[in-house]
């Protein structure tokens, strides 16, 4: 066996002679402190478990301290985010043919595509409307990326549409990007999301109308849905009916059900 280098040598443990009284005293203090701190720890945990629920508003369903932690995490993580952080993209042939979807909240009812239009509410209250043809005229962008569901599954998917930032620029809405947030809602107002502006104008965020190079199926949000690869699937609103801009957080379906408002990746 090789001799160990000097710095690797373990110092022997210190030994000393003590009286029984000293011993009991040390044990008493140590176990007392241990029991006391365990009780404090347990009490803290119980208090957290039983903390009052937040006042329902833009977010709801979480206890006050847990919601505060989620919001603080957001403030911290947003500093690491920029439009230069691109989502990994894949070759088209890796995209799933059977594209998974989870929910039909907001797109469940009867729907006549001919009635559809996109209403954009500007900060000054003015509303501008666009038809499907208006949007299809804009430069098209395709993206093949790993779609991530908050439940834990992910799937490589291929979407096509117009970059949200391109849409804003072409439609003369670029001045709206100085708002803090974008809100989007289905025509039936059943599903709605709030997106922070940096994520909304991220170069990979698109208003999608194609899936696997084909017109998008109804269950995936026809005619126009949000594909925002920097967020979990819950933020990828299907069948956008209305877009709003604001400096406060717009309503968000899942944030009202206890989920993190940011839900960024």
């Amino acid at each position, binding site marked *: *066996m*090789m*001799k*160990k280098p000097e*710095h*690797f*040598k*373990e*110092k*022997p*443990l*210190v*030994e*000393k*002679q*003590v*009286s*029984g009284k000293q*011993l009991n005293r*040390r*044990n008493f203090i*140590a*176990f007392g402190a*241990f029991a006391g*701190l365990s009780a404090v*720890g347990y009490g803290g*945990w119980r208090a957290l478990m039983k903390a009052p629920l937040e006042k329902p508003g833009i977010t709801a*369903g*979480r206890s006050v*301290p*847990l*919601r505060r*932690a*989620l919001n603080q*995490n957001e403030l911290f*993580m947003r500093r*690491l*985010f920029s439009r230069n*952080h*691109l*989502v*990994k993209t894949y070759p088209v042939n890796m995209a799933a043919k059977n594209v998974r979807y989870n929910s039909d909240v907001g797109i469940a009812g009867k729907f006549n595509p001919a009635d559809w239009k996109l209403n954009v509410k500007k900060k000054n209250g003015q509303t501008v409307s666009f038809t499907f043809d208006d949007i299809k005229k804009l430069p098209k962008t395709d993206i093949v990326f*790993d779609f*991530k*569901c*908050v*439940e*834990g*599954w*992910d799937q490589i998917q291929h979407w096509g549409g117009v970059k949200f930032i391109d849409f804003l620029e072409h439609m003369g809405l670029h001045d709206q990007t100085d708002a803090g947030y974008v809100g989007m809602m289905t025509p039936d107002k059943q599903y709605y999301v709030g997106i922070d502006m940096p994520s909304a104008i991220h170069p990979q965020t698109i208003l999608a109308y194609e899936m696997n190079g084909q017109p998008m199926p109804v269950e995936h949000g026809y005619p126009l849905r949000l594909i925002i*690869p*920097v967020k979990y699937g819950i933020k990828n609103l299907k069948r956008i009916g209305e877009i709003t801009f604001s400096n406060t957080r717009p309503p968000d379906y*899942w944030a009202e*059900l*206890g*989920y*993190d408002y940011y839900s*960024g*990746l």
Partner: protein
Amino acid sequence: MKIREKHTLAMRWFHWLNFPLLLIMIWSGMLIYWGNDTYTITVFGHQFFKFFPEGFNKFFNIPSRLSEGMAYHFLFMWFFAINGVAYVLYTLISGEWRKLVPHRSSFKEAWLVLLHDLHIRKTAPPQGKYNAAQRIAYSAIIVMGLGSLVTGVAIYKPVQLNWVVWLCGGYHFARILHFALTIGYVFFFVIHIVQVILAGWNNFRAVISGFEIVKNETEVLTPETTNDEKA
């Protein structure tokens, strides 16, 4: 009576803080996992085990608590990380790492320790504060903790920290690693508890009071020298 100062106050703190923190991380992690439980042990197409059977799920009232699990997980991850980093810094600065890091000989010795623990071999190899098996286990758990933090961050912010995802071999693999490490903690925990019970009260008390009583006063503890002189 003669005592031996075994665990410093700082070491005891790190240990006992980590215990509930790890439990909370495992518990809230399970709530998240149940959002889409898919992992199984399948060999040649035969499924031997599914993590976790339906009854387990019902017993712990786990379904539909995904958002709750995420909220707890993303709060306590900070404390888990801080405690782990502080522990590592402490062992580095105090020199305690010398008692923990495995030696070249530890892997061979650990086998002898195992044989001794199983009552197959009468004598255990000489040891310092920790025996060879403990050195490996306690160092491995630190590496595992680091692994959980890194893979966790990869799953948490795969866009903002995409180089971490790359380090972990992709988003999918990071998730599997993160999950496998959790199963590893459960194994560690079970073995650790059994060992603590077998080691007895004197050993257990040292993790609360810091000292152990030297039972055989003629016994001389000269940890590293015993090893080296043999060599």
